[in-house]
Each structure stands twice: as structure tokens, then as C-alpha cells.
């Protein structure tokens, strides 16, 4: 499996948990309701969606469930399933809120946790409902048939067009924000934006950046479909889309860390390289005890030197978080680009190394495997390119995430969002202005739970099988962690938090494979200990999270120069 495929499945999880955390953020971040039972709504969404797309129950087989609507037209489709999952989770969220919302915050947290456990127990013990303690399987995600695409039919071309449209729109949307920030970088952001939007950028006066991005994506999608139907240049289009995304991502990083000087970058790169060196004993050393001791020792040395630098050197202390970010990105780039090529290079196979590099660079396409279009390139060698279902599914999930994020940002900036924040800060004020905080709290619970249900439906689609053990209180813990890492009350922070958590999970899952199977459980548990310790450190040193609270208001007294509304939106 190429590194890009690992990244794809990582992004799928980020989208699901991003949406789940957006829901919790509405509850806690925006309204101040501490919901320890968020996983309950995730569960309701997942099982509702599954029951909508499952075929009617066959009494003769081993699975039993209450109803399967999969064979009904319209009702039995994934669209209806997701909608129903969202609505039902929202409805139940409201019903749970009605009696509990008046309780003290700690009572609320514990009772809602209890409610989520009750949901889990119901699934576990009522076998007629959703196959009880055994897995509920037997359905497949939508449009899976034509994959992997070979561009032989018009449908293939259209599906690839949809994929390109979504990726193009999301990337262009990001570029648009960068363009609005309008600072001087060495990157030709303006020219790239004109190119990426097919000249539509000139309409900026009349259209919002999101609208420009959406239309640009549409144009890219239609162009791709037409090109595929006539010429089938899969590799070329895939390469263009991938490179476009890489360039925008690099511009983003350059913009984000524009204040860092050369020595700060050097510290970050040293941190990332140090991490890689610290992990070197894993594949190299044979004896398990020595392997653990050497890795832990080197990691401790790395953390100690970072701590030493932060406490003793002022200029490092000023950028202590930024250098960790740079280090993490440097580590990921080493892992993504350098490590896969080491194997072929070690054998002296330069062509093979380039081949792997191209595979990872053109992330939009899947290489190898059965099916696809074959290419033979100079030096690089043979490539079999296709679009697999994971990438197509990711495009869909990204679209959902981007759409929900957009809608939520609108809601948060609306008068409704202002009232929610007022409820969080001081209920008495809300009451004195003639609004009933109870109503707003229930509405917040409904919206947050509905988002949880939506995420559950996507999980059902992603996992293609549901067991009650998945929906343990641990999921709520992870969602809370994501929320506090990103910054409670900041929607963008949810996506960042989900990214950080799953990057850590994916990275450490790979590490476990260097250990004998007997102690893998211990290693898996150990990484959760690390997660817990990091969570405590973040709660203590960064209680506002990485991105801080996004209050959408201009505190006039504390800030001498209030910034205009436009910059808070762009930040």
C-alpha cells in the first residue's frame, strides 16, 4: 500500500470525526453544555442509516434485525438513510435534553453519559433490533459497483468528474482564503488563483470566495468528464489535480509560518528529524527489550532537549508551538516522500525509487492493484493508474464536511449563534434580554446531536458493519480531546483537532507492527496513555486549544485597535 493510500483512509476518519466534533462543539464550545454522551447520537445515526439501506431481514440466516428498507425505491437509498439518521439523532437529542438540560453541568454530563450507555446496552441485549451483540452487516456503500474506474464507460468518466470537481472546489476554496489574507509571500497566489478558478476570480466583487470555489470545481468537473469521455488521459488529469493541491498546501504552510525565521525553521526540522532518529531502533534492533528501551530513551532525550530549549532560550520559547508544528510536518514529509524510496534506492534501483515517488506525489490516483489504465514512462517504469472507491468516498465525505462547516459558520455568526454564546457566558443576561435560555439550549442539543447522527451514518457507510462495542464512551472521550485540542468554540479547530488525533493514531498503529504480536495490545494501550498525558498537558498549558476561541466579536476594550469583521472570518 502506497503512503498516499494510508493518507486517504486517514482523511476519511478525519472527515467523520470532524463532523462528530463539530456537533459536540455546538453543544459545549458554543453553548456550554457538557455532553459526555455524544457517542449515543453517533450510535443512533449509524444504526438508523444501516437499517435504511439493509435489505429485508432473511429469517433463515444468522442475522436478525427489526426492519430493512433497502429494497424500497428512494427510501432505501443512502441519501434518505443519512437524512433519517440525522433527523432521528436530532429528535432524540432534543428528547434527552428536555428533562436533563436544567441540571447542573456535572449532573448533566453524568446523566447523558448514562443515556449513551443505555443506548449501547439496548443494542447489545435486544437481538431483534439490530442483531444484538453480533455485527450488523450485509449492506454496501453507494455507487461502489464501477470501481476501480477504467474509463471505459461514460459513467466512469462522470464519476471521475465528480471526484475532480470536489477536490478542485475544496482546494480552490482554501486558495481563496489565502488570497483574501493578501499578504506578501513569494508564492504567486494571485496568479494561481486566477488559473485555478478559470478566470472566475475576477467576479470576486459579486461572488463570495466559497461561491467562486464551488463554480470553479463544477467547471473542473465538467471539463474532466468531457476529457475522459473523449481522450481518457487519466494520469495527466490526476497529476494536475494532485500538483495543484500540493502547491496550494505548500503556499498555505508558507503563509501560516510566515513569521518564522531561518533558525526557527531549523529547530523545527531538527525536531522532526530527531523524532525519526528516535524511532530508528524499531526496525533496526532485534531484541524486544532493547528495542523498547532504546526507543523510549531516545524519545525522552528528544522531549528533554525540547523542554530545555524552551525553558532556557527565549527565541525558542516564543515559537514553541510553531516549531512543533514544523517538526511534525517535516516528519510527515520524510515519512511520505523519503522513507518509501529508501527500499528501492538501497537496491540501487533509481527508477523504482522514482516510481514510488510519483505514486505518492500523484495522490489523487491509486496505483497498482487489479484494473486500471497502464502507462509506461521513461526512467520511471510501468504504472497502472485508477481511481479506487476510497478516493471517491473521500471526495463525498470532504464535500459533506466542507458543506456542514460552511453552514455552521453561517449559523455561528448569525444572531442565533450570538445568543448561544451568550447562554454559555451568562444565562442571566440572556434572560434579562427576554430570551429563554432553555429553548436555546434544547435547540443547541438538537443541532449538535443531529450532527453526531450524521457522522454516525457516514461511519456506517465507511465501516460497512456495526458492532455495539464501537460505540463505547471512549468515542466521546476522543471527541472531547479533538475539541479541546482544536479549541472549544472554534469550528476550524475541530477539523485541525481531528487531523492531529488521527495522524497520531495512524502513525502509532504503524509503529505497533514492529513488535511481536504478543505485546501489541500493550503497545496499543501505551499510545493511549500518551494520548491521555498529551491531553492533560494541553488542558493545562493551552486551555483554549491550538486555535483558541473564535468569538466572532470584537472586544473593544481589551484590544486597542479592533480588527474589522472580515479578518476574523478569514483567520
Amino acid at each position, binding site marked *: 500500500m502506497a503512503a498516499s493510500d494510508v493518507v486517504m483512509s486517514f482523511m476519511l476518519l478525519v472527515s467523520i470525526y470532524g463532523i462528530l466534533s463539530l456537533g459536540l462543539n455546538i453543544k459545549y464550545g458554543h453553548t456550554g453544555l457538557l455532553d459526555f454522551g455524544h457517542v449515543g447520537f453517533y450510535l443512533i445515526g449509524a444504526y438508523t442509516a444501516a437499517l435504511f439501506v439493509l435489505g429485508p431481514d432473511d429469517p433463515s440466516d444468522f442475522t436478525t434485525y427489526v426492519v430493512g428498507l433497502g429494497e424500497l425505491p428512494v427510501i432505501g437509498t443512502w441519501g434518505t438513510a443519512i437524512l433519517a439518521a440525522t433527523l432521528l439523532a436530532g429528535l432524540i437529542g432534543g428528547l434527552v435534553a428536555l428533562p436533563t438540560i436544567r441540571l447542573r453541568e456535572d449532573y448533566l454530563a453524568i446523566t447523558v453519559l448514562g443515556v449513551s450507555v443505555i443506548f449501547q446496552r439496548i443494542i447489545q441485549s435486544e437481538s431483534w433490533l439490530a442483531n444484538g451483540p453480533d455485527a450488523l452487516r450485509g449492506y454496501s456503500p453507494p455507487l461502489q459497483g464501477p470501481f476501480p474506474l477504467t474509463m471505459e464507460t461514460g459513467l466512469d468518466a462522470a464519476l471521475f468528474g465528480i471526484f475532480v470537481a470536489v477536490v478542485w472546489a475544496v482546494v480552490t476554496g482554501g486558495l481563496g482564503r489565502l488570497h483574501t489574507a493578501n499578504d506578501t509571500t513569494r508564492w504567486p497566489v494571485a496568479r494561481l488563483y486566477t488559473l485555478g478558478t478559470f478566470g472566475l476570480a475576477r467576479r470576486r466583487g459579486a461572488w463570495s470566495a466559497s461561491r467562486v470555489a464551488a463554480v470553479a470545481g463544477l467547471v473542473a468537473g465538467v471539463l474532466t468528464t468531457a476529457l475522459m469521455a473523449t481522450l481518457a488521459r487519466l494520469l495527466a488529469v490526476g497529476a494536475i489535480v494532485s500538483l495543484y493541491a500540493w502547491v496550494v498546501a505548500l503556499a498555505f504552510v508558507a503563509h501560516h509560518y510566515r513569521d518564522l525565521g531561518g533558525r526557527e525553521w531549523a529547530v523545527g526540522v531538527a525536531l522532526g528529524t530527531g523524532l525519526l532518529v528516535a524511532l530508528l531502533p524499531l526496525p533496526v534492533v532485534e531484541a524486544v527489550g532493547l528495542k523498547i528501551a532504546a526507543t523510549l530513551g531516545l524519545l525522552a532525550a528528544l522531549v528533554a532537549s525540547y523542554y530545555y530549549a524552551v525553558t532556557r532560550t527565549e527565541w525558542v520559547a516564543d515559537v514553541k508551538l510553531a516549531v512543533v508544528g514544523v517538526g511534525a510536518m517535516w516528519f510527515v514529509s520524510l515519512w511520505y516522500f523519503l522513507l518509501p524510496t529508501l527500499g528501492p534506492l538501497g537496491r540501487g534501483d533509481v527508477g523504482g525509487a522514482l516510481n514510488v515517488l510519483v505514486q505518492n506525489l500523484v495522490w489523487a490516483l491509486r496505483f497498482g492493484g487489479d484494473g486500471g489504465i497502464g502507462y509506461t514512462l521513461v526512467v520511471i517504469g510501468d504504472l497502472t493508474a485508477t481511481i479506487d472507491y476510497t478516493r471517491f468516498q473521500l471526495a463525498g465525505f470532504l464535500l459533506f464536511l466542507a458543506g456542514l462547516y460552511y453552514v455552521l459558520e453561517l449559523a455561528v455568526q448569525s444572531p442565533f449563534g450570538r445568543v448561544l454564546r451568550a447562554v454559555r457566558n451568562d444565562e442571566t443576561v440572556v434572560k434579562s434580554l427576554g430570551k429563554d435560555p432553555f429553548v436555546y439550549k434544547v435547540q443547541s442539543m438538537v443541532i449538535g446531536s443531529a450532527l453526531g447522527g450524521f457522522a454516525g451514518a457516514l461511519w456506517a457507510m465507511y465501516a460497512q458493519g456495526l458492532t455495539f462495542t464501537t460505540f463505547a464512551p471512549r468515542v466521546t472521550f476522543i471527541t472531547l480531546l479533538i475539541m479541546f485540542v482544536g479549541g472549544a468554540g472554534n469550528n476550524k479547530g475541530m477539523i485541525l483537532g481531528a487531523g492531529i488525533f488521527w495522524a497520531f493514531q495512524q502513525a502509532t498503529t504503524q509503529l505497533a507492527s514492529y513488535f511481536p504480536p504478543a505485546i501489541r495490545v500493550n503497545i496499543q494501550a501505551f499510545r493511549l496513555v500518551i494520548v491521555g498525558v498529551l491531553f*492533560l498537558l494541553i*488542558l493545562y498549558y493551552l486551555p483554549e486549544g491550538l486555535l483558541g476561541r473564535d468569538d466572532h466579536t470584537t472586544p473593544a476594550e481589551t484590544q486597542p485597535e479592533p480588527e474589522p469583521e472580515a479578518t476574523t472570518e478569514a483567520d
Partner: protein
Amino acid sequence: MAAETGVLNAVVTGIVTGSIVALGATGLALVYDIAEVPNFAHGDLLTLGAYTALLVNKPDTVPLFGALATGPQQLGVAGMAVLFVLSVAGVLGTVYHLGGIGALRGDWWSVDVSDTVALVVHGGVAAAVGVAVALGAPNFFASLLFAFVLLGAVVPALESYVFRKFREKDVELALMLVVSLAVAFIVRFGIQTVFGGEIRSYTVDTTAPFLGGQLDVTLAKFFDIFVVETGLVVGIVESRAGTIEPLLVLSYSWLELGVVVVGTAAAATLASRRRRDSAAVVGPRLAAVGAALAVLALGGAAFWGGGTTLPDASLYATRIRASPLRLGIIGLALFMMSLLHYLLQATTLGKAMRATSDNRQLAMVRGINTRQVMMSVWIISGLFAAVGGVMLGFLFSSITINLGFNLLLAMFAGVILGGISVYGAILGSYVVGLAMEIGIFAIPGLSATYRIPLAFVVLLLVLLIKPEGIVGRS
């Protein structure tokens, strides 16, 4: 004739469950009330206690430490030395948490003694515990003692290194909840990092000499109760290979029963009248209950009518299923709770704890060492968690990393029901235990998985009607 289990059996089972819940809930309530931490890690502290006892009971199955074992349940000299050192460190660490080196010198004693005496006493107790654990291994009680002293030192460290730091930042209660959740995560997966994922259990000799024979404490006995025309017959019955064997039959006539009932009521009233001071260690209610139980037991023994056969027909018959172990847990819980009651009511430390619970600011102004109070609360919480965890592991005969967490919700239900106070939590735990068992018995078609949900339904109902809890201050 054999009787069927009925509601009385559910009540007895409920009291056993309530006792287990109460062992955990008292520590949880103390910390919640006085240290103001809704400690989500408390369930995992019980798990920690259960796993810690494995070091003594089954050292050969513990990773790394197992290298010092010489055979199944057998330790070499090096292993014994490690246990000795750990136990000594546990005892001294517990004392140290009460106020640093000063505490070791006897600061926390209510009598004034010289530093040397206090140091010698502390050292002596620590050494005695160490010797008892090291030589007693793999005995069950040595394991319990080991978990007891170790958790007494480890749990307050959570306060020193985590919760106090956050309290000093003056965080909201909601954030404290999240912090404790993170601690729970660290404790639970820390245990799994060391012990791995397999299910473990204690190996304990469960037979004890009893009335000249051998008694297996884990095997269930049946207590059959018959109401017949002449009176009441109680038979203690054992079921072996399908046949019913009465071990002991007690029969009482209606007259004898009447005398016992009247005597019990009279004793209770008298005791309650004599004890008017509700602040004393034995207050009026406690005195009444104690006197009533004493008279009941005396009367039951005095009128112990003969007979070895069970009646063939009865007006009403019911059966209680209980093992000596389960009944022992009730006794253990009562014992632990009376110790705590004594501590709270009769010692200076207890008075300081109650004062801090009422009003921390005022207690500080009056010169009470609230920091010491806080630490002692965490120590007691740890000690109770150790006992609760080890007993839970013994009772379920399987120790998993979810052992304590599964009970956490029931404990929280009990604590909140009781309005977040120690005495309320004890009462709340028994309400929760009874609700779980009677609910499972009374609602047909409800599987045992619904125990915890039932506790929550009770909690929700109480919170809706009386949000401050059943004994809470409104």
C-alpha cells in the same frame, strides 16, 4: 419441598450489590464533596487496586515482576524484598502525603510526641506491613493489604500532581470533569500497558473450617423461608447434584415471633430515646438500628426450635440464594463504613473534613489545614478503592481493565442520588443496588445487561423530582 426465589432474594442480592457500590461510592463522594472533583477516574482506581493485588497473589503472571517468581504463586527472596520495599513505601508515602516530612515526624497526630517517637512508630508500622505482605504472599488478605497501602500512597499523588494544579488555575467544574476523564484514560490504559489484554483472576483457597466441616465460601447456599400454619420455618439448604440437603432448620411459633418483634421494637425505641445527641459517634438512629439487630439476633438464637426436616406444605415459601462470600461483602462494607463514620465523627481530622465540606473558605479562616484535609480525603478514597477493587475482582473471579469502569456509573448514580455527601452516598448506593436487582427481578423479559440502565432510570427520576438528591441540602 423446595422454595422458589422471589422478591426477598432480589432484596438480599440488592443489598450485596449496594454494598459493592457503596465501597466505591464513599470514596467518590468524599472527593466529590470536599476536593470538588467529580472523579471519573475512580472506577479505574478500583481496577488499579484489583491489579495491584495480583503482584502478591499471582506474581508469576505479572510481566517483568514475574521474573522474580520461582513458581506458580511463589516468590524468591528478591521478589519478597521488592514486595517489602513497595509496602513500606506505600505506608510511608501515605503518611507523607498528609504534610511532607512533618507528617512523618508526627504533625498530624492529635497528641504531641517527639519526632523520634513518631518516626519510629511510622517506621515500625511500615515494616510490620511490609513483613506481613512479603511473608503472607500469596494469601488473599496479604494481597488486599498490599493493594490497600499502595493505593493509599498512589491515589493522593493524583491530587498533588494533577488536580491541585488545575484547582490552582481556578478552572470550571466542567473542565475538572474532563481532566478526571483524561486521568481515567491514563490509569486504565496504563494498567493495560503493563498487564496486556488477557482476563485475569485470583487464585485463592476458598474453603474455610466451619462448624467442624469445610465450607466453600464462594458456593451458593439457599435460605428457604416457609410460612406455615404454626409459624415460621427457616432452612439453610445446600443443593448437591440435584438433591436438596438441609444443613440447618430453624422453626419459630407465632408466639415466639411476636415476642421477638415486640422486643425488637421496644429495644429500638429505648435506644433511640437514650441517645439524643445526634452529633455523637452513635447517634439515635444508629443506636436504634444496632439495638434492634441485637435483639433480633438474640431472639432468633433463643427460640431456635428443633427439627431437621423442612415442611411439606406451606402458606408461603420463598428462597434466598446467597454465598458466604456475598454476605461477607455486606459485613466488610459495614465494617469499612463504621470506620469511616468513627473517623468523621470522633477525630479532629474528621471534624476538619466536615467543616471543609460545609464551607472551605470559612474552614481556612478558622485555621483548619484544608490542604491536609484534602490529602486525607484522597487517601481515604484510595484505601476504599483498593478494598472495593480487590473484592470486586474476587467476587467476579475475572479481572479485566473495564472492571471498575463498569461500576462507575452505578457509583455516580449513588453519589448524586445522595446529594454528594458521604452519608447520602451510602444510602444512595443501597437504593441503586436495590433498584438494579429488584428491577431485573420485577420487570419480566429484562435481561441482566440492563442493571446499570435501571440505576440510571432511578437517578433520572430522582433528579427530575428532587434535583438536590434524596438527602441533599436544598
